[in-house]
């Protein structure tokens, strides 16, 4: 091991763990960039378009969503493509709200912090016990994911562009699996499971009648609404004795 006193202060103490966690998460997440880049060019985007998405949009779920819709319906699907990406990015706003208290930023650094605000940087920051490691975890993970994600996007985009049809390498099946992987860790309770199943069924029903991209944007909020209504009705039914209904 190296002499700890020789390390810069931000690497002393427990920070070694934060650093290795950040870089590990950054590399592992960055690897998915391969599948994004490959799917993007196989969906008809140019290598540069795939790269610009990873640089500017920098949020996996939204990126997969926008290329999915553009790939299926071309430029005609522009509006639903933007809307699905936008709606999927909503959770980053909540990470940002939480992180702004942790990071205590002023001025223009907020602009960079905002770009690095994603699932992984938020999660690593959340896993640290002290404020300075929470800050370190956020910045290092954000930067590491950014670098690896963009690098692997480029490699994947070149590989994907060499495929004549996405189906030949099963890339179309990879897209569904990619979304399932993002969904899986969220299915920990009955309620998200109910919302997920409802949204999936609604989306399947809407695929035929509605133009590409629209089923997703309609099915998701409708599923949330239906499950909410169902829960309200159930709660009312389970407390009929008081007659007071829902008094929460």
């Amino acid at each position, binding site marked *: 091991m190296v002499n700890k006193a020789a390390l810069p202060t931000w690497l002393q103490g427990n920070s070694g763990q934060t650093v290795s966690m950040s870089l590990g998460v950054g590399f*592992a997440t960055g*690897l*998915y960039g*391969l599948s994004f880049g490959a799917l993007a060019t196989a969906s008809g*985007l*140019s290598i540069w*378009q795939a790269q*610009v*998405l990873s640089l*500017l*949009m920098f949020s996996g779920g939204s990126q997969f969503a*926008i290329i*999915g819709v*553009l790939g299926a319906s071309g*430029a005609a*699907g*522009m509006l639903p*493509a*933007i809307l699905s*990406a*936008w709606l*999927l990015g*909503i*959770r980053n*706003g*909540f990470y*940002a*709200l939480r992180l702004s*208290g942790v990071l205590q930023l002023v001025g223009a650094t907020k602009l960079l*912090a905002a*770009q690095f605000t994603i699932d992984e940087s938020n999660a690593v920051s959340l896993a640290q016990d002290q404020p300075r490691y929470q800050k370190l975890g956020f910045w290092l993970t954000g930067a590491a994911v950014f670098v690896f994600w963009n690098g692997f996007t480029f490699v994947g985009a070149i590989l994907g562009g060499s495929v004549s049809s996405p*189906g030949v*390498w*099963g*890339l*179309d*099946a*990879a897209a*569904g*699996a990619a*979304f399932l992987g993002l969904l*899986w860790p*969220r299915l920990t309770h009955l309620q*998200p499971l109910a*919302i*997920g*199943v409802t*949204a*999936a069924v*609604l*989306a399947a029903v809407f*695929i*035929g009648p509605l133009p590409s991209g629209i*089923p*997703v944007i309609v*099915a*998701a909020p409708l*599923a*949330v609404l239906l*499950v909410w209504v169902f829960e309200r009705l159930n709660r009312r039914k389970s407390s009929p004795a008081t007659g007071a209904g829902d008094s929460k």
Partner: protein
Amino acid sequence: MIEFWPAILIGSLAVYSWKILGYLLPESFSRQKTVVDLANQLTVGLLAALCTVETIGGNQGIAIDSRIPALAVAAILYWRKVPYLVTVLAAAIVAAALRYFLHWA
């Protein structure tokens, strides 16, 4: 496709709008349970719907093909806690193999 650029740039800006909004709003906003719940629920709904559309969506309506067994394999692998990238790759290989060896759609 040059026609994709507006969607790419506007979409990127739209996604960034959430991120920057979080740093500009007062922090008390993030402690409102309803708001947080709604965001989580909407994310689950969107991911489930996207997964469905990517798996059975065709040029005209629903298309049943090798993507379904591929997704089933992916579900089993996620359930067995196999890493994300390995699972995505496995799904692609299943679909590609079914098409190549069994001539499935």
